[in-house]
């Protein structure tokens, strides 16, 4: 839903991920883009070029932070140094909400730098919700958790992934970043109907949607973010928009990155499915 408490009451349209190969084009040409999503960790540094570029972007664009290593699903609690740096960055960017993944990635102080799948257990629900609440309270910005692509399932699981997601966000009272490409990838890898997933998610909690491409191998699909969005993923997106209404949408393209124009064009395909913003309707009516 647009402009809810999970988006800090702001209504964003279609954005793209800010990536290094596009820096020059964006800073020199200043193309019209509704918003950029940044990978928080790339800018959680002390000084230097990353922050210099970010500050220039912030002069002209709206930015939303997306993290890749908070690991809400870790058995351990969130790292304090990480939280402090993240909070400092939110003050810089004024991000209306921030997101990270429904996954784990480190244990006993050792990091995998991967988005690892959760065992869908009640125990994991409790710990994940606790960690999300702690991050949300510390940073003071609404948090949206993103479903990940996965390639393995645990015997220990006691529920489906979407049941797990719903339980976690209810207990943490947070938003959802619904990645429809990840739903598709996991549905193929684990053989479920992706629309069952979309239909189960609480639409009022969906703060943002991710779209992306992937790579199909003979026996599984990898979430590579290096292709255009395929039709079955658009179909899931269409259904998500039917349920959630106008929702901030973001295209991720992280490898074999084409020109800025091509990435932006691909992202704007989402507007075929998005209802107009209330503000736009008012302008037309006037």
């Amino acid at each position: 839903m647009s402009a809810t408490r999970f988006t800090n009451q702001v209504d964003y349209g279609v954005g793209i991920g800010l990536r290094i190969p596009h820096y020059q084009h964006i800073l020199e040409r200043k193309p019209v883009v509704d918003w950029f999503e940044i990978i928080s960790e790339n800018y959680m540094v002390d000084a230097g070029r990353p922050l210099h570029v970010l500050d220039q972007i912030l002069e002209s664009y709206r930015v939303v932070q997306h993290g890749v290593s908070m690991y809400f699903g870790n058995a351990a609690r969130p790292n304090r140094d990480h939280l402090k740096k993240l909070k400092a960055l939110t003050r810089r960017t004024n991000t209306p909400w921030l997101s990270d993944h429904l996954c784990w990635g480190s244990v006993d102080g050792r990091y995998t730098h991967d988005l690892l799948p959760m065992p869908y257990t009640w125990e994991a629900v409790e710990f994940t919700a606790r960690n999300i609440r702690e991050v949300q309270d510390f940073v003071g910005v609404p948090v949206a958790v993103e479903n990940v692509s996965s390639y393995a399932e645990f015997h220990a699981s006691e529920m489906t992934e979407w049941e797990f997601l719903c339980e976690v966000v209810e207990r943490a009272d947070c938003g959802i970043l619904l990645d429809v490409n990840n739903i598709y990838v996991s549905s193929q890898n684990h053989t479920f109907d992706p629309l069952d997933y979309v239909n189960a998610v609480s639409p009022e909690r969906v703060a943002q949607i991710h779209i992306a491409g992937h790579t199909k191998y003979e026996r599984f699909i990898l979430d590579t973010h290096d292709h255009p969005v395929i039709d079955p993923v658009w179909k899931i997106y269409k259904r998500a928009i039917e349920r959630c209404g106008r929702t901030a949408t973001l295209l991720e393209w992280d490898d074999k990155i084409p020109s800025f124009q091509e990435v932006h064009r691909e992202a704007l395909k989402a507007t075929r499915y998005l209802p107009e913003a209330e503000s736009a309707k008012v302008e037309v009516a006037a």
Partner: protein
Amino acid sequence: MLKSKSQPSARKTEAIPALSKQQEEIDRSLRGIQQMMSQVLFRPLTSSEGMQPEWNDGRPTAEVVSEFIKPNDRLTSFERLEIYNQQYWWRLLGVFQEDFRGVRAVLGIRKFDKLAVEYLQAHGSTTWSVRDLGQHLVGFLEAHPELTAPRSDLAIEMARVEWAKVIAFDGPALPVLDPQSIAETPPDKLKLRLQPYMTLLELRYPIDHMLKRLKDRGSTSARASNAMSGSRQASLRLLKGNPSRSPIHLAVHRRQFSVYYKRLEPEAYRLLVALRGGASLADACASAFSDSNMPETQAAERIREWFQVWMQLGWLAQ
């Protein structure tokens, strides 16, 4: 505070408020699964880049992983976890390779890959940022010359410069020194600080020139995106270099948000090292020229020139 086998260390225990007995059991269970899976991920790949078929205790790995990972109609439990095992190593090796392209070019692909696996096993990532992955490499290379022989000295110097580049890229900066404060403070009272992002190095090999030769190779990548990669690239032209007759003094720094190398005269290097060590300006100047044959008037002129340049480069801080 409840005591439990699952609490990993006293240091961590201090930071975590007491949990109820029920929570603690839950924690142990979740942690147990995560410890098991991470053990699988951290085991190096085979020479054919697959998951090791034999577990630590001699059992088939397939048997071990099938205890906690479900198979599906296309992949066994082993094959499903192998995807993660491969992605872990390919991602970290990719970052490591990108940060130490010079070391790789000095050693060659096979030797570098072996070194990288040994290093990452000894010093797996302990922070949320892959930026810090190589922070222990120089010490590791010094402790394990057998991994880089016969080019150990060159590999160590290359690693020192490449780690200095990581620091120079995004390391912290202090406010630049106000020239007025130098003029107003007597030299024996004046203590100057150097920018923390700058590293001073004494080298035997012309690493700066060697790295310039490498500059047009390779490309950037989205290092923190967590997108999966399908395979790992491997192509390389070996980088060669001979030791210099006299030591090379190098500052690795940044200007206008780009990383640069600047060669220093030996006296200038000693002066900067003394300042970094906390010496007053007067003491630093004295130590810089203690072994120098340079006449005093010439030395004074050189110091003036150096400071002019260093101020322009923003090296001196409050």
